[in-house]
């Protein structure tokens, strides 16, 4: 085991996959000489050469479309969006081509698109978004949102191996803030299995990404008052671990769904609706959603802090649940 930051774990996974499978290559803006905007691929071009670590023009459409074409020809491209926000420029290639090509043509599109997402550092409206719900709504795409270095490494290996287009949402605010024990060798974390990040039986908090840590801090706070909330880290949204969520509902009878993305139409709505449909009789309180308000991500620190769900917001919601 080695202690790694979240971003080191991502680099490590990528490096190991490229060493073990010559079909894996990366393409994106500034990924080569510069090593990527966040330095995930720093030193990669020296090790793997300029044709496996490809600096592209500023062309998100050509990056994702190019990845799709290369995947159809048998390679395993890992495309980097400099920021998840810029995936909007490649929407068509992902949603119209990559997501539907296997359904229509029987030809799998094994691509990974890495998406540095999330806020918390005054990135403003175009460098802070968490657009995972938009893509979770598109049949044919898989959506991965790791919260820990261990999962980031294992899920990225699974993503590269997967025969489908996978969107890999890396939370930028976790990059250097979160450290953890990570096996040095290659391993995979399978899609569709939630992880109990913090055990508890009084309520279950269903969340993913950076909010796993916010939820854990809030649950620790409530534990002082004798209320033990479970933090269930979904890890992947498509597929999502419905069974484990419903098990948590049955056991705890109180549910809080938490995400950094905006509220209306967020993936939390899908979770809450599923619980209402399939576990209504187990609920002792209405499902509570804590999410960002329906607005662009603001720039100025006090505004951004008010926008992104904070530990205090989750604590308040848990107190409501406890009191219900």
């Amino acid at each position, binding site marked *: 085991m080695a202690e790694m930051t979240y971003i080191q774990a991502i680099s490590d996974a990528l490096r190991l996959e490229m060493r073990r499978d010559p079909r894996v290559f990366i393409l994106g803006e500034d990924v080569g000489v510069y090593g990527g905007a966040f330095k995930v691929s720093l030193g990669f071009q020296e090790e793997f050469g300029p044709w*496996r670590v*490809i600096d592209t*023009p500023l*062309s998100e459409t050509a990056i994702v*479309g*190019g990845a799709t074409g290369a995947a*159809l020809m048998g390679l395993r491209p890992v495309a980097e969006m400099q920021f998840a926000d810029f995936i909007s420029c490649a929407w068509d*290639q992902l949603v119209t081509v990559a997501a539907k090509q296997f359904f229509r043509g029987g030809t*799998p599109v094994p691509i990974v698109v890495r998406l540095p997402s999330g806020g918390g550092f005054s990135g403003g409206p175009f460098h802070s978004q968490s657009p995972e719900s938009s893509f979770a709504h598109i049949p044919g795409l898989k959506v991965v949102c790791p919260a820990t270095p261990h999962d980031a490494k294992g899920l990225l290996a699974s993503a590269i191996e997967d025969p489908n287009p996978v969107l890999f949402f890396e939370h930028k605010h976790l990059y250097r803030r979160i450290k953890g024990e990570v096996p040095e060798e290659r391993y995979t974390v399978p899609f569709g299995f939630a992880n109990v990040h913090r055990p508890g039986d009084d309520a279950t908090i269903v969340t993913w990404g950076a909010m796993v840590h916010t939820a854990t801090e809030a649950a620790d706070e409530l534990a002082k008052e004798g209320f033990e909330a479970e933090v269930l880290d979904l890890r992947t949204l498509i597929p999502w671990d419905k069974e484990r969520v419903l098990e948590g509902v049955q056991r705890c009878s109180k549910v809080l769904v938490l995400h950094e993305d905006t509220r209306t139409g967020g993936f939390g709505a899908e979770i809450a609706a599923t619980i209402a449909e399939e576990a209504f009789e187990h609920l002792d309180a209405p499902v509570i959603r804590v999410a960002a308000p329906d607005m662009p991500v603001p720039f100025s620190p006090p505004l951004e802090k008010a926008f992104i769900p904070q530990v205090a917001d989750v604590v308040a919601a848990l107190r409501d649940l406890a009191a219900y």
Partner: protein
Amino acid sequence: MAVREAEPVGSLQEVKEVGLDREDLLAIYRHMLLTRGIEERGHILYKQGKIPGSFYTGRGNEGAAVGVGTAMGPNDVGTPLHRDMGVHVTRGVEPWRVFAQYMGREGGPTGGRDGNVHMANAELGLHTMVSHLPAMLPVATGMALAFKIRGDRRVAVGWFGEGSAARGDAHESMNMAGVRQLPVVFVCDNNQWAYSTPTYLSYSVEHIADRAAAYGFEGVVVDGTDVLAVYREARRAIEKAREGGGPTLLECLTLRMEGHAVHDDAFYVPKEMFEQWAAQDPVERYRTWLHNHAGMTDDEESEITSAVKRILIEALDRADESPLPDPSSLAGGVFASFEDLDTPHHK
């Protein structure tokens, strides 16, 4: 780098120099007749109510499509569009599967999951188009990128129209292909009408191929009704790409001889324009050339014509026998499994 306007093809000797023997020449004719025959019978099927949705043809584009399709090597790949039935036919699609596709039957290449010309057979090196044009150009560019990375001596061909040339996908893919000198040929089916939009409202240069200069590669304009000239230019571009010479933009100038789709009577196209282009119908033009330059006899011609008719009759019967898809199969096929990767084109 100015755009080059290709000369028409003249004598049989000229054709031999570009690598076609008499057998090839007759095969080209057969493919053009099959292409037109498939689409003419498609019209009938549509009028009989057997084709759900809409129906699109490439009438007038048979020469451009068959010419490029013939120039592709056996391991080359491409992303043909809805005016390019000739590419599918030349690469060897079985006509009954096209009819089955039109009618939403199980036997079509997409098994009823998609319709009309949204089909392709990966084992023939063709990958199915989407409606959002020219979204397949970045994909073809990525195929060429894979060839370049692996050092394969293969070429990707990406098709687009003069209308979709206005979209950013065309720019991004051509720019990236130019920067990386990728083995890709961009083929513009310029049929002069993007639905009802004429060329002067789509672009403000003389030729779409003029744009190639902006990406650092050659642009060529060819008369798309001259199948042999298209073949010669496509072959030159493809082999240049194969040898590491980078991309080419090949613009095939034709006229869309029907409406955008079957519902559209193309009232906005001037009558004289139709008359002018009808006089250089690609199939008729090539038939005449074969008689005048390749000594095609009447017997040879009727042999080809009746063979094509027979193929089409059998194809219609076989397609009609293909069942409609079972609704219980609806949910399948959204996500691929590891076994699905075990296909020739993924190796």
